[in-house]
């Protein structure tokens, strides 16, 4: 148990340090989301957003920005031999799944720390919904990290890496997006945040996180065998 925890901490620290030094995912994700907001501003021809439109723009942008990071999540492992090192190390391989998912959650939180204030600055009039929105963001990030890590680890060993992640991940996260936009919509409604079915949607998000966290943890072993 302690060795697993140590391995988890080591892999996570390695990932965060290499991201901090190379900055190959996060700036691109943040830049992408800001540009997408600008495109939505002209695509929808709106300067103010609220309710379902605001929720849709926010979540579509965050999802596509997340896909950029998910695409690159295992590239270093494959190109620099990280997979071989994990296979050689006397540790439980599922640790790689949890460490990578944790790294992805941190990337997504960092992305949202930049993207959501800019979104609010660009489009929102009422900022009261942002505090409860943080909870929705956190729960959705956990689910996105679980499925994203699983798909990314498979896609990176295929011929069509950049193609497979969006192709397979998008249908897989549809329930997550339904719940996330469902919870966000009343929060960003015109005239103050509402909490219509907020708890129900949070429960769906939690259920999604739980199911795909467990599935990913259970099947990840088989992806590293060779």
């Amino acid at each position: 148990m302690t060795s697993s925890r140590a391995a988890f901490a080591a892999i996570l620290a390695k990932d965060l340090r290499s991201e901090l030094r190379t900055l190959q995912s996060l700036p691109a994700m943040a830049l992408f989301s800001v540009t997408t907001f600008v495109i939505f501003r002209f695509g929808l021809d709106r300067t103010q957003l609220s309710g379902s439109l605001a929720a849709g723009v926010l979540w579509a942008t965050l999802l596509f920005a997340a896909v950029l990071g998910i695409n690159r999540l295992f590239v270093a492992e494959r190109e620099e031999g990280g997979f071989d090192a994990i296979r050689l190390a006397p540790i439980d391989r599922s640790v790689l799944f949890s460490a990578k998912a944790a790294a992805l959650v941190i990337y997504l939180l960092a992305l949202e720390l930049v993207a959501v204030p800019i979104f609010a600055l660009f489009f929102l009039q009422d900022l009261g919904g942002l505090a409860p929105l943080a909870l929705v963001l956190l729960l959705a990030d956990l689910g996105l990290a679980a499925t994203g890590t699983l798909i990314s680890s498979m896609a990176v060993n295929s011929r069509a890496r950049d193609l497979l992640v969006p192709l397979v991940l998008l249908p897989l996260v549809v329930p997550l997006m339904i719940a996330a936009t469902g919870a966000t919509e009343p929060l960003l409604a015109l005239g103050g945040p509402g909490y219509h079915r907020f708890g129900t949607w949070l429960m769906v998000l939690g259920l999604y996180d739980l199911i795909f966290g467990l599935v990913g943890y259970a099947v990840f072993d088989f992806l590293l065998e060779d």
Partner: protein
Amino acid sequence: MYGKGLRPLSIATVAMLALSLSLVFFYAPLDADQGFIQKIFYLHVPLAIVALVGFVVGGVFAIAHLRTNNRKWDAYSYVSIHMSVIFGVAVLVTGSIWAKASWGHWWVWDEPTLVSFLIVFLMYATYYPFRYAIEDPERQARYASVFAITAGAFVPLNFMAVRMAQSLVHPRTFGTANGGLPGEMMLVFICCLATMALLWVTLVKFELTAKSASGQVKRLRRAIDAPAPGAASRIAPEVS
């Protein structure tokens, strides 16, 4: 060796198809509300149920593959999903026809069952490019099993999420307090459901037999050093 019992199974399927269709057209009462078009229900709903069960069955075979590491189960999983995707096309087409006749539109978005089925169908449609992108056959089999298990867990969750997002306008035919099907309709429906399940099993068995036969031919050719005619499929698993 997969061909054993295929002939009686096929005959039984054809007989059941004939029986079910004649029951649908000559025995089942006309729906008071929707009239003749409602009869597509006997085709559409069993197809949908069989396709969804087939997806989950593919996931169960995938679990068997990962547990035993026997490639046979990967072939079972592949064929189950393959057949269910084909059934899924039929479900979407018949559902569209029914929607046009009953609600006046080919596609209705505030219709949870239709939308969930579309999402599940899209999910499984990515199974093919996914398999195709992985070259090493053993890794392909393992990854495909992981995909099948993940997608199998996704099916019920997706239905729940979509249903919660929308109003309930789909005809809830079963289990409603004062609704429910009259006895004759229920009988025909169960007969159709059994037929579709039988059809699915027969087609799965057919494809497995074909794959096993072509695998055997390939091995025999290799034994006498004759080159195989044409390239082998890169995504369909071989059956021994």
